[in-house]
């Protein structure tokens, strides 16, 4: 996968992945979120980890996640993010959307060439 392809996927789905991660794992810091997404996607989406912070500030500003300073497991000062009520609602809609689109695309891709 080229950098170009990676980033295109990222643009559309990173928000959703972050929301889902926070929904599943509870409060996490940026490093943790980045690690988690990398692990799950089997490094397929590996890009600049700094990009995650663009996504995080966007989600905070949309009030879908909240941020508080805390102390990490290694006793390091870090910012912890948690999903909000509005974020959960958004995640639900986005998931439905995603599934619908994925379903349709899947069906389209399965189409066999018909007889003329």
């Amino acid at each position, binding site marked *: 996968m080229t950098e170009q392809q990676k980033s295109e996927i990222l643009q559309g789905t990173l928000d959703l992945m972050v929301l889902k991660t926070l929904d599943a794992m509870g409060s996490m*810091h*940026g*490093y943790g979120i*980045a690690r988690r997404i990398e692990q799950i996607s089997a490094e397929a989406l590996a890009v*600049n*980890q*700094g*990009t995650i*912070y*663009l996504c995080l*500030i*966007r989600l*905070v*500003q*949309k*009030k*879908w996640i909240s941020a508080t300073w805390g102390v*990490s497991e*290694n006793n*390091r*000062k*870090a*910012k912890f993010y948690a999903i909000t009520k*509005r974020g959960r609602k958004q995640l639900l809609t986005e998931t439905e959307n995603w599934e619908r689109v994925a379903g349709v695309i899947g069906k389209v891709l399965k189409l066999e060439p018909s007889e003329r």
Partner: protein
Amino acid sequence: MSTSLSRFLSRVRAYFSKTDLDADLNQELEAHVAMLAEENVKNGMSPEDARRAALIRVGANESTREQHREERGLPWLDTLNQDLRYTFRAMRKDLGFALFAILIVGLGIGASCTIFSVVDALLLRPLPFNDPAALVWVQNHQVSDEDLSGQTTQVDYVRDLRRLSPSWKALGAYMPFYGIGDVLMVGTTKPVRLTRVGVSDNFFDMLGVNMLAGRNFNAQEADGKTKVIVVSYNFWKRELGANPNIIGSTLRFDDGAYQIVGVLPRTFDFGDVFAPGTKVDVFAVFPLDDNTNKWGNTLAVIGRLNPGVTIANAQSETGALGKRLRDEHKNDRNDYEPYLKPLSEHISGAVRPAVILLACAVGVVMLIVCANLSNLLLARGASRQKELAIRSALGATRARLIRQMLTESVVLSIYGALLGLILAFVGTRGLAQLSGVSIPMLGSVAVDLKALAFTVAFAILTGIFFGLVPAMHVPANRLNDSLQDSNRGSSTGRQHAWMRNAIVVSEIALASVLVVGAGLLIHSFLRVLDVNIGFHPEHAVTLRVDPAANLDTKAKVNAYFLDLLQHVNQIPGVSAAGITDALPYGTNRTWGAGEKGVQYKPGEFPFAFIGIVSPGYFKAMGIPVIRGRVFEMDDPIPPQIAVKDNQYQHDAYAVINETMARNVFHGEDPIGRQTNGGATIIGIVGDTRHLSLEKDSGNELYFSIIQTGDWASANLVVRTTLPNNVLATQLKNALAPIAPDLAVGNMRTVQSLVDKAVSPRRFVVMLLAGFAAFALILASLGIYAVVSYSVSQRTQEIGIRMALGASAASVRGAVMKQTLLLGAIGMCIGIVAAAALSSLLTALLFGVHAADVATFGVMLVVITLVAVVAGYFPARRASLIDPIIALRSE
């Protein structure tokens, strides 16, 4: 709160707490790198390698930070801030240019904003009434606005319409045959004459005017027997000290004591709406009853349509009903033929062409302002090429540079707008306070929120407009070219010279159009002032001298008049005095005026404007006697005079004007013949242009005030060489025995009546001439700027020419030739455009053809002169170039 809104607010907050958030981000990224490095160490890297790998993986560099800032804050605002800082630095560096640009934009925007306020007040803003779109002017006959009797309606028709017509929610009326200073207010220290208008009891309710205090008239007062009045806002402020508890108190007039029931709001000025240029003080009920019905056509009718009824529906319905009623009452009523138009059209329709013309003119002025600034910015842009090239070398994109240039022009424009607003505030205040100008709604002209919004939008547009051409000349990827080009100082100038020339040519063309327009109107104005109005307004003053109410018989009134005239005539310095009921340019009325015994075809019965005048009037007014004689002091006084009785004309004398002699008596000698009413014609006097200076007199028929009682006001006219204040004292003293309540404060010069009649024309001419003058100044500056720029660009070339033997005169000649060529092209385009547009002016012209050769000729001379003057200085400078210095200069 919506997501996008909360995001926007967060961005705004982020914009203002950059430092904190940057520190936050740094800390966060630092933590991230540290955690990743720890992980790497665990995986067996050396600490240095681990940190390096972590930094690469995170991408914790300036570009990430920058992206983060853009994501969280307002990047466009950051850019704008930078551009603005840069702009202010550039402006400080070239303060002269900035001030000049601000000054001309300010003048242009000041004029635009003022004219916008006028357009808004006169044409855009709804009338100051509730739901004004449903208000309709219901005039009688589709006639000109001047003949009041022709377009007013008899009382019974209004009563019938109210009863029978389903179109109207309400029909109201006012009585337009009031005179200025009709009533005398007594009981105050100084007697004052007030203007009182009679209105139907529902008039203000029908319009939807809410009283500031008190109430409107009510149905019980509709018969006019209870003496109640409503006062205007201005009268309440001026004469009643703005006393909020004034309701219920009484004012004493010469015809009795009236109780004040209401105070009109400030937003409704009757004069401003219905009688521009006059101040109406108080309103009383004009009863619509059998008695007032006998007075003939007396009402100016306004109606409010029922919801859902269109004016076209109402016209066909009311029109048909009116026709039926007229046919039913052929013998006992005047003619009736309702003609409906929206009230707003009645009020501002007449001034609409003039106002639109002014708006167009100010638009042209703004175009010239923009052209001028474009040109200056272009010239300046050329000298900034190097700077722009350096910025683009440092990474600024072309779009960013264009934005920078536009920011600069918009900032200049906004500063200009601030200046313009100050000018507009002054300008609109001045206009609103103009007195004696008969333009409707002028009193409500003001810079309001709408005008403010207009100005801001207009300023930004202006800035973009005049900045666009220069901005587009920002170099695109021609770094080397620009850096070298500016060094040589030659080819850049050439490259865009055509653009600058084109701009200057268009400036000259636009200025030509304005000069032609202003020229045509000034020419018309002079023609109007030059017209023979048939009387001599200079050295004549007028004053109300209505007899007191206790003079209850005709004999007493006549004795009063004759006594009064005698007293006035005895004042030294008074050469003539007379009385009239109809001053020029005031209210007028018409009567049927045929020759006795002649059968006229239907619709051909002649009408005449009526004047009831005293002996001495024609002399006092300066109206020449053409044939026969006019009224004398010892004319017989008819023993019995019944008011409003056509029979009174028996035994009476009549004087007619030349037009009536021609129209009714067809050039035969009318003296000794009789009018259809039975009055004997004793003389012919000159025509007077009493409707307006532009309109012919029409038939005029005069009766003697001592032979009839059918007059509503008595205006003394005195011809004198005395100064006004001396005359006022003299009159006061001379008339003290017979008219102790004389309100000399209300004395007016006859010239002021004429001035008021030409005031709308004067108003338009003054403004347009001002615009044209401004345009000329701008055009000359434009020419000067372009020519002098081209001279400075060609210094070397001129130096070489002179070194090769060109004389100073030939250099000067070459520059002048260039200037005049620009001027000539501009004028050619201007002539074509002006010829195409001047026909739009036709409605405003008087005695001048739209393609008036003289006016176009004057324009050519004026523009050529301007071009010569503007080109002379650069030409002189070119001829003084020292070849040696020029050649060494680079």
